[in-house]
């Protein structure tokens, strides 16, 4: 299989958008660039950009490896992504409203009823309810892969509580600090306005239209693996970072305990999953949520972002319907392609998957983080037959996709540059009348040679992602 190398063409010559960067990289001053890797790691450690890993012994804090070579996209390439993400996120919001109201898309025979109503991400509590401002997914992250110069595929939509945006910003911050000269030489679009835009989008969705609204970020606590991001966003927005123990329902409103008494919250950006949000409505053992918050929500007194129940739109089984969802609600053809997907719950699809497993990627419908998936071409005979047995036992739990030829961007090794596979997660913010996509995103890179798995839990790293001012 041949892969699209984003830095060098097949003839070995650098692509235009990397010209200036390579001029810098090939200068004698950068001969020992690899040594500065440690410098970057120290910045991350000092800033506390770590995630917790729990083993039997004790808690350890790990860094997601950061590669010093940026991934560069031109303004034109970005336009393809930006328009596609906008279109997709708008359609997903329309879909969510419809699915919790009239369910026209089911009535039109486009999506089978069973796929929605038997899905655990579908929340009957949300039926007939319209969130303040009518928005379901305020913050979305769309995972893309590139296969050729102009072709981007959507691998996955994240419209529940997408994470990674703090890495987008801190990776850039680190690059600014380490290589200031690069940014005066190459005009790169800024990502730093994201927190301000996020705050604006959250405030705009407040149920209180007249007064200045109070926004807070809800975190499961400092032992959560994304805790850094939660505190980073609260800090950057200048709002309180609250935990379950800070919150209480007072006179039908959600309030936080401050040094001066209780203060009402109008908009809660929650980084706690649906099932843990309200022990009275969902998982009764949850200590991470606020008992009674769903009642406050349904009385229209608080905005919860993202809305409960949005998970029905980014489910791996619904994913394959997104092109039709886009056509149904916008009347347009999807700008970003979907990866062809076989739903193993379907008999014909299952047959195909069993026959062609060695060339497919098979994933669990509710899986994430790269766990529990099979990459056919990389699997041994034993692994294939073991996975087949698992698959046949519970076919509806799996989907399959062709193994894509993911593009590569070089990473810095002791021996020089070495191509590695990458994906891209751009972040979208939704307000009543527009969708804003930050010019950039989180590039994840598989650090193992030949590996197609970019997840940090599986040894993936990240890169700074540059969108050029020029086309």
């Amino acid at each position, binding site marked *: 299989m041949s892969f699209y190398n984003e830095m060098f063409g097949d003839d070995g010559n650098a692509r235009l958008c990397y010209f200036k960067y390579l001029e810098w990289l090939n200068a004698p001053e950068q001969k020992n660039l690899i040594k500065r890797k440690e410098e970057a790691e120290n910045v991350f450690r*000092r800033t*506390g950009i770590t995630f917790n890993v729990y083993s039997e012994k004790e808690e350890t804090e790990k860094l997601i490896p950061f590669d010093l070579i940026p991934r560069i996209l031109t303004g034109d390439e970005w336009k393809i992504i930006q328009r596609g993400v906008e279109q997709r996120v708008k359609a997903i919001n329309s879909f969510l409203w419809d699915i919790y109201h009239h369910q026209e898309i089911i009535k039109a025979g486009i999506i089978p009823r069973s796929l929605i109503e038997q899905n655990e991400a579908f929340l009957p509590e949300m039926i007939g309810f319209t969130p303040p401002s009518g928005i379901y997914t305020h913050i979305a992250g769309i995972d893309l892969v590139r296969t050729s110069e102009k072709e981007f595929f959507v691998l996955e939509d994240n419209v529940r509580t997408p994470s990674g945006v703090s890495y987008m910003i801190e990776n850039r911050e680190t690059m600014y600090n380490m290589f200031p000269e690069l940014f005066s030489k190459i005009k790169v679009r800024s990502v730093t306005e994201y927190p301000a835009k996020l705050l604006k989008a959250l405030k705009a969705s407040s149920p209180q239209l007249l007064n200045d609204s109070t926004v807070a970020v809800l975190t499961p606590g400092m032992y959560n693996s994304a*805790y850094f991001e939660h*505190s980073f966003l609260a*800090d950057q927005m200048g709002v309180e970072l*609250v935990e379950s123990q800070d919150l209480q329902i007072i006179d039908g409103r959600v309030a936080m*305990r*401050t*040094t*001066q008494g209780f203060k009402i919250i109008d908009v809660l950006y929650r980084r706690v999953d649906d099932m843990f949000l309200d022990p009275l409505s969902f998982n009764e053992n949850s200590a991470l949520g606020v008992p009674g918050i769903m009642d406050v929500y349904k009385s229209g007194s608080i905005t919860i972002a993202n809305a409960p129940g949005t998970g029905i739109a980014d489910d791996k089984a619904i994913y394959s319907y997104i092109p039709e969802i886009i056509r149904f609600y916008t009347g347009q053809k999807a700008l970003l392609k979907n990866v062809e997907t076989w739903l193993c719950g379907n008999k014909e699809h299952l047959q195909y998957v069993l026959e062609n497993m060695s060339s497919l990627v098979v994933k669990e419908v509710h899986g994430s983080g790269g766990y529990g998936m099979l990459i056919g071409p990389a699997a041994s005979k034993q692994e294939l037959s073991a996975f087949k047995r698992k698959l046949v036992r519970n076919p509806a739990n799996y989907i399959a996709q062709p193994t894509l030829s993911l593009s590569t961007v070089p990473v810095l090794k002791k021996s020089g540059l070495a191509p590695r596979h990458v994906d891209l997660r751009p972040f979208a913010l939704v307000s009543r009348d527009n969708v804003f996509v930050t010019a950039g995103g989180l590039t994840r890179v598989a650090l193992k040679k030949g590996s197609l798995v970019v997840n940090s839990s599986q040894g993936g790293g990240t890169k700074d992602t540059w969108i050029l001012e020029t086309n």
Partner: protein
Amino acid sequence: MLGRNAAGIYWMFRYLERCENNARLLRAGLRISMTQYDHASQDWESVLMATSIKTLFDKIYNECNSSSVINFILREKENPSSVISSIDKARQNARMIRTVLTKEVFESINEIYFNLKRLLKRPVTEQSLPKTIDIIQRQSALVRGCLHGTMLRNDVYDFARLGTFVERADNTARILDMKYHILLPAVSYVGSSVDISQWENILRSVSAYQSYKWLNENELNPQGICNYLILDDRLPRSLNFCSKNISLNLKSLSQSYNTSFCSVKMSSGQSLYLKQLGIEEIFKNGLHEFLSTFLVKLNSISNQIEKDFRFYK
């Protein structure tokens, strides 16, 4: 400001102060063991008593010598007040409340945590103790410097200062009380032939030796030293200085919140009392009695702060 964040910054600075006090205590202990050859192990034991966890020490170690005491105070994870435990808790609190800390303050506490963790990985010998103590003191000075240089003078700052002064007053009072037990079993012993180097040690363990000499021309006597450590409002570790600042910070909170609090009344009463007190009176009624009452009052002020500012649910 969230009540939980107020608790977080208060405790972050209490633990940071505790960490530094431990280091200072060890420095004094080392000094004594180098100058007093006769009862070195006894002196190390006296260091231990200042931390008021001798019982825990006896549970873990068989012998009381320089190496066991040094490691108990610096590295022992079972010891909730050891340097490593204190810095761990200070940093945990910092992580919990990093949204109210400047980048400089957070990064400095994060840095001290990593440095001390590395530094204290292996047992610390008497030989490497001075260097280790130096690093602890410098690193904690760095955090304090970042606090002063970068934080807004608002409620967050007041809670940070409150934590510092409550812990510091507690520490100075305990050190004095501990030495009192060893040195002055009865009031009549005042001025008798007590080992003056023990008193020197007290001064060193609260970083007051040098300044005491500036003020008193090297005249070391128990009453003068007690007067200095309890009543002199110029010395940043004296009970009077700490009480005055607890009261000032609480008044500042009361002003910015435009509310009168119980803890304000309690602390200003305490501060006023110390201001008017003379050392003769303290000695007449008993130093130990005075210190015990002081610690009880300090503790109740701390409890009242927790209530007044809704630290906990």
